[in-house]
């Protein structure tokens, strides 16, 4: 595997191998000096054409803990505003010597295009509504390490709740969960579901459930998606209050969760839209674990793609 553009780029053994690698990285992150020389001398460029401070910092932290040099390019401070094309930007940075590009863009498919313009490795850090593969992997890592049956999610039921249609997280996470053996339910109004084809599933390997209350008591993982406030502008929902009424996690709904069920959210949360309960009060919340696991999983991704020396992981500085 040279690039990570789509969770479909990885088969199940590759996903398992990566989750195991993330265990090593998690161990490194617990050390007094959480830094190893595995990618010393390599350069990772984060090219963020859409604002996302969290994801950018997570990738950059991962790269730095592996001792890679990090270059940051963000649209707001760059010559993109002077009319330079993305292709020119990528070719220019490549010419400076980049081993991996971490790319975020508001348009689906851009990371795939970037692979045509550089010899470097490309990691998709989120493109349009399409994919956010490291999110899918870190979510799988979070669930499997919390519920513990190796790297399998067999026998688990997951509900992904909210605006699936516009969510790259839902596309990546549902794919990884499904292929690791979970039953994946997509919960939300039909207007926020991807339009499937000929009555088929909205996304491969998923089932749709229109009503949160009828499924919440049976899930092992409740995965809440962020709801954009402007969705009512294009007639997708009547208003945010009605949306919250039907699909938000409220204190009442939280009481219907099974004991031991996990609650997850890719962040940032809307505490007045889809999360009407304080996650700190939920014993099953893994929302902060997702963030810290994100660093370990992204370290594993960069290490695997850039072919870091295995010896480089054990040596502390």
């Amino acid at each position, binding site marked *: 595997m040279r690039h990570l553009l789509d969770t479909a780029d990885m088969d199940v053994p590759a996903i398992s191998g990566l989750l195991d690698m993330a265990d090593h990285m998690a161990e490194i992150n617990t050390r007094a000096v959480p830094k190893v020389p595995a990618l010393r001398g390599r350069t990772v460029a984060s090219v963020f054409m859409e604002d996302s401070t969290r994801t950018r910092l997570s990738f950059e932290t991962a790269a730095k803990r592996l001792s890679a040099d990090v270059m940051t390019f963000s649209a707001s401070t760059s010559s993109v505003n002077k009319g330079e*094309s*993305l*292709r020119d930007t990528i070719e220019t940075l490549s010419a400076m010597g980049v081993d991996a590009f971490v790319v975020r*863009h508001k*348009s*689906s*498919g*851009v990371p*795939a*295009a970037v692979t045509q313009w550089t010899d470097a490795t490309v990691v998709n850090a989120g*493109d*349009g*509504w*399409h*994919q956010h593969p490291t999110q899918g992997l870190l979510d799988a890592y979070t669930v499997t390490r919390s519920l513990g049956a190796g790297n399998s999610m067999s026998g688990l039921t997951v509900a992904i709740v909210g605006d699936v249609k516009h969510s*790259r997280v839902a*596309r990546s996470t549902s794919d990884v969960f499904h292929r690791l053996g979970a039953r994946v339910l997509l919960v939300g109004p039909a207007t926020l579901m*991807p*339009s*499937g*084809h000929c009555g*088929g599933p*909205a*996304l*491969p390997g998923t089932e749709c459930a229109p009503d949160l209350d009828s499924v919440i008591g049976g899930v092992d993982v409740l995965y809440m998606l962020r709801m954009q406030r402007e969705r009512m502008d*294009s007639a997708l929902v009547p208003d945010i209050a009605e949306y919250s009424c039907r699909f938000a996690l409220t204190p009442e709904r939280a009481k219907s969760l099974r004991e031991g069920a996990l609650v997850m959210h890719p962040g940032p949360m809307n505490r007045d839209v889809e999360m009407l309960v304080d996650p700190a009060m939920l014993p099953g919340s893994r929302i902060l674990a997702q963030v810290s696991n994100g660093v370990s999983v992204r370290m594993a991704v960069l290490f695997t793609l850039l072919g870091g020396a295995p010896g480089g992981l054990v040596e502390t500085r």
Partner: protein
Amino acid sequence: MSKQTRRNAAGDLVIKSGSVVNPDGIRRADVRVSDGMVTEVGENLEGPNLLDAEGLYVSSGFVDLHTHLREPGREEAETVETGSRAAARGGYTAVVAMPNTDPAQDSVHVVRFVREQGRRAGLVDVHPAGCITVGREGRQLAPYASLAAEGVRIFTDDGNGVQDPLVMRRALEYARDLGIVLAQHCEVSSLTGGAVMHEGSCCSSMGVPGWPSIAEELMLHRDIELVRLTGAPMHFLHLSTAGSVELVRRAKKDGLPVTAEVAPHHLSLTDELLAGFDAVFKVNPPLRTMADIEALRAGVADGTIDAVATDHAPHPARTKELPLDQAPPGMLGLETALGVVVTSVNPGPVRIAELLSWNPARIAGITERHGRPVAPGEPANLAVWSNESVWTVSRDDTASRSRNNPYHGMELRGRTVHTIHDGEIVVRNGEALK
């Protein structure tokens, strides 16, 4: 520049040993061309200039109802001359130039300019289409009578559907008595906002906004009913869905004066090609599913679809390299249309001539010079072509200024060999002579 003298003044041209395709059948014959006209069709004709057509068909030249020549306004993508040359290489002797130029072809002076550029290039007859509404904005009617007096016979806002049913109704009523035809781009735009590709399972997985079939079918259905109400004829551009074929089939059964075209890519390519996010496959209306392709092929076979029209839409690489949601829609088509029709439908030489020449000439209102029988006294606008020859498409082997060819690297059966425009050989063995 031409190595031939115009109209072969030095002597007659004889197209030797071809199979001449006419509505009453196919017969092996030589065709003598003199002074821009076919003068003789018979056996053992001789002359100073011979053009070998052994194993090839000789038919009236093809007529494209749907060509974007981009001039004036977007000469970076194509000019009337380069587009005309691509057309000639495809066997076309006439093209209808779509009016979404800048400025749009909604006034006499722009129409004159485009036609004059066509004359200057001298490769095919360029017939500018007029606009249905001023600036293609869907509000005020364009001056049909003034444009008709300039020879414009077909009017469209192509690229935009006329959204307002009142405007469409008035346009049909006003046009009815002028001997012109309105051609609709069927797309209810509020259903296709930001759309990148066919709304279906591929689009769902790829996470891009979809262009649902219903957006085409709703407007088609509305306009069929407006034709029923007004009695004015109407032509439907680039139909792409199984439901559209059925709507037109029923309208024709009801005896309504409607005609329909399909683009070669909608007979051959599916939405799955977009999985790699390559904008060369982005087109409007979008590539759809195999079920749609099969319905369109059936419509071609049973006569529901009258014509194959290319929707040749050149774009520079610079814009096709933009992200899929920002790249402009459209693909080249003039040089591959015959090959795609033969490869995907193979309806036989007479039906090919009907789909590519006779019917589009009739719809475009240019039957005085195009879509004529190959017979003495008829204008010598001729295509000489094979439905057997197999070739591999290369985007670089083109007369177009652009390279957005979706068939690059694919094998096609069927190709134009020679094109005679106005009695002059403009393409010989696939190469443009001017």
